């Protein structure tokens, strides 16, 4: 009788573990230049992000969150976005995603910033998993030093999907906005390490 109970309990535990699906926490792939003192960077410019999704405003949405979170983190001051776009136009930079070292240097001088943040949004939207959809967002952010043009920080991160409790017990799952906010916050947190 006791043996039967033990088997039953083990079976339930095994089923729970299998059904829960060991979802990884979206481990970030990031690079941070070891030989650079990040205290040197006081003010940055956030460039428009490349939108590689079907969502028309995904790049703009993530850019707004990046600016807000950078400011809120207290790590860096951020240039007014309008000022950045004016400088891009004045310098005749046609494609922000294809900026070379000389463009980055010129932007740094024109705006008086120590670094520029560039990047892209690879995924933004609902992903169908089985019978229901959940939000999923993937972003890549890079920080380039305006004096050297070299990348000093870079990260690619994904977040989304429903948790075990949400799938099976109807627990609350994140909205797409919450997913973006948490994703950007986690990405920026790596700057403070």
């Amino acid at each position, binding site marked *: 009788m006791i043996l039967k109970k033990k088997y039953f309990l083990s079976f339930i535990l095994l089923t729970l573990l299998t059904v829960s699906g060991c979802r990884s926490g979206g481990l970030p792939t990031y690079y941070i230049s070891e030989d650079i003192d990040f205290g040197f960077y006081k003010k940055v410019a956030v460039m428009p992000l490349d939108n590689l999704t079907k969502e028309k405003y995904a790049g703009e949405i993530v850019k707004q969150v990046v600016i807000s979170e950078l400011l809120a983190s207290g790590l860096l001051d951020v240039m007014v976005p309008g000022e950045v776009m004016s400088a891009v136009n004045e310098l005749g930079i046609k494609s922000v995603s294809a900026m070379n070292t000389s463009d980055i240097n010129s932007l740094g001088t024109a705006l008086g910033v120590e670094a520029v943040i560039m990047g892209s949004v690879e995924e933004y939207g609902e992903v169908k998993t089985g019978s229901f959809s959940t939000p999923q967002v993937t972003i890549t952010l890079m920080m380039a030093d305006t004096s050297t043009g070299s990348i000093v920080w870079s990260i690619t991160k994904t977040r989304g999907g429903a948790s075990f409790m949400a799938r099976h017990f109807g627990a*609350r799952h994140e909205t797409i906005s919450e997913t973006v906010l948490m994703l950007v916050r986690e990405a920026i947190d790596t700057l403070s390490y």
Partner: protein
Amino acid sequence: MLSVTSKEKGLMVTINRQKRQGLISVLIMFMLCFLVLVVSGCSSSGVKHFMRPGADVSSVSKVAVLPFDNHTSDIYAGEKVRGIVIIELLSRGMEVVEPGEVNRALIKLKIRSLARASREDYKSIAEELEIDGMITGSVETYGISRGISVSYPEVSIGLSLIGSGNGSVLWSTWHTGGGADFWTRHFGVEGRTLDQASRDVVGEAFEPLFSQMKKGTMLLIDDSK
């Protein structure tokens, strides 16, 4: 050696059984509480914001709410949220320039796009409207989203307070709200409307700014004493 009678043995068995049943009840209650807590979803409402160090926001009493950037599929979302922001500011005792006056000033100063507005442009707007600051913003999400089993309102906004002195950002935040609550998800209770969710998001987003303003005013009162 004390001999235990069959009656006493029976009594001990009963006590043990009662103890075990009590323990099981406690365990079941504990598990139920845990499940309710997990299923209800502990969402944090903490609004992260930026406040420029040394900025005296308590001196800002008259502002202009500039047209919002709209990043949603609802073409009027920017104007709707702008209206809610104006009402929120007025209800908190701030003086707000009429939207028509703001639009007139933008046309007069030939500022076609706020996305390309420089610090000089912001200074010109402030001079033209004789204001202490400007609220700029964007609407990232405004609509009804579909969850696993229910639909819910979702609103996300970015807000900034630009100082009239040097045209720099004094305060900034990005906040999101909405989602289905426990009662809607599990018992089909009618949730918040999109309008209510928008008002809540705007109110929560402004909370840190106004608490800072209040603190600043308190400090000024203390200094005058």
